[in-house]
């Protein structure tokens, strides 16, 4: 499959993969263009260090290129790329013994942009308590919320594919966290009253 440079942006991932496997390096360039930013975000969310995230992202694409012949098309290509990124990030975390922390501060920033002023107030008041709330999250839940946050189009089935778990597990974990967060907010509101 030899694709014209102008056509590249229109073809689907599978065609790009076939084209790369036929020696078309422009097709690989298109793959980088499509996924580099979101993979970088995902890795950064996982490892928290921008420079390391950049190196890992490069490593992800080099591995992706070298192992491209093993891609069978059984899962979505994007899921396969995220799987590589996830594995690289976990390797990095293990090597550096880093603990994935969620962005409490940034969560505040986001919330402070919300139209509800009481919510903004509550967030500022309960910083320490949110920290303890987040500590109880397991690795899979953290990865689920990272992946869900990355892309609006990312469905639970795609996340399940990347994390190699059931869709129901992903959905349950995500909604349970959501309910827990709502419950936490309600308790805070009651206390404030």
């Amino acid at each position, binding site marked *: 499959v030899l694709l014209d440079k102008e056509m590249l942006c229109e073809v689907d991932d599978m065609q790009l993969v076939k084209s*790369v*496997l*036929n*020696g078309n*390096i422009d097709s*690989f*360039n298109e793959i*980088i*263009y499509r996924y*580099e*930013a979101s993979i*970088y*975000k995902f890795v*950064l*969310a996982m490892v*928290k260090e*921008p420079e390391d995230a*950049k190196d890992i*992202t*490069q490593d992800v*694409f*080099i591995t992706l*290129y*070298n192992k*491209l*012949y*093993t891609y*069978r098309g059984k899962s979505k290509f994007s899921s396969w790329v995220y799987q590589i990124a996830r594995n690289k990030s976990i390797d990095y975390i293990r090597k550096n013994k880093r603990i994935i922390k*969620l*962005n*409490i501060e*940034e*969560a505040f*920033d*986001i*919330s402070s942009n*919300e*139209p*509800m002023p009481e*919510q903004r107030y509550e*967030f500022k008041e309960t910083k320490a308590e949110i920290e303890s709330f*987040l500590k109880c999250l397991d690795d899979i839940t*953290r990865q689920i*919320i*990272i992946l*869900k*946050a*990355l892309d*609006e*189009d990312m*469905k*639970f089935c795609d996340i399940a594919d990347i994390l190699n778990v059931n869709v129901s597990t992903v*959905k349950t974990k*995500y*909604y349970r*966290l*959501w309910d827990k*967060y*709502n419950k936490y*907010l309600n308790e805070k509101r009651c206390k404030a009253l």
Partner: protein
Amino acid sequence: MNCRTFSKSLKDYIAGELSEDVNEAMEKHISRCEKCNMLYESEYGSYKAIKGMALPQNIDFTSSRYEILQSIDKERYNMSFSKKLSFYFRRNSIKYALGAVAIIAVIALSSLAINQFKNINMMGKSNTQDVPKAGSSVENVSPADSTPKDVPAANTNTKDVPATNSNSKDVPANKSNTKDTSQPSKTQENKSNNQVKQNNVYNNDKLGISFTVPQSWIGRYTVKEETYGVNVFFKPTVPAPEGSGLIFCLIKEGYGDEEFLDSMGDPKTIVAKGVTYHIDGPRDIGFPDDHKEYKDYQKFRQDVPSVVKTIKTVK
């Protein structure tokens, strides 16, 4: 859509997990119902907050495309057919490994099965050896020896084989000889009434000699093959000195006396498979006269001419 259905589907709606049709219905309901609109705002706030927890803000992203393209081997997939083939095999290496394991397992199992089959065949052959068969080459042969363990013993067939049991106490029971490990030389016919008749024909395919003995001999004689010929011995129930009890013998020409014994009857010689045998007998007393079965031995000696008459060559 009512408020209950709306609240049930609200999380899925915000998470983008609903179909377009349902999404439209949800949007319509939000625009119409203030209460549900409030609920939506609250849930959406939580959703955004959770998203905010997950991802870092103000990401400063610069593409590393150039570095990546510099690091990869651009010729990796721009290659010959043989290299593509090697990628294909590497890609399917697990399949091939599993296939190889399956083939090895099949080979191992089939060789096992073949061995088992051979064993069964060998067992089958040994069974047929247990079944008395005329013409088997043996050293010690007696009709009683040929009685297989799973076939009723000859002494149970008193009516059909009166000679076998007519010899009162002196007659060795055929059953008592079943432990003898010597190979059989007699054929048996297993009739539907479970009675066994023993064939009294001695057959030696190796030497090409056959003869028929009287019923009274069954179980009471032994044939010994020697390099110089074949000796037929009386088999007493009470042990007798070794080498005693010779009834008659077939001696290869040049090994024995040239003078024939008249007591042996006719023929005097027989040619089997190109070898000439002289039919001979004991030149001395043959069996101790103080042995309690001496009379039986004498009777056997008297039967010799009739047996010699039946000697013939077989192919």
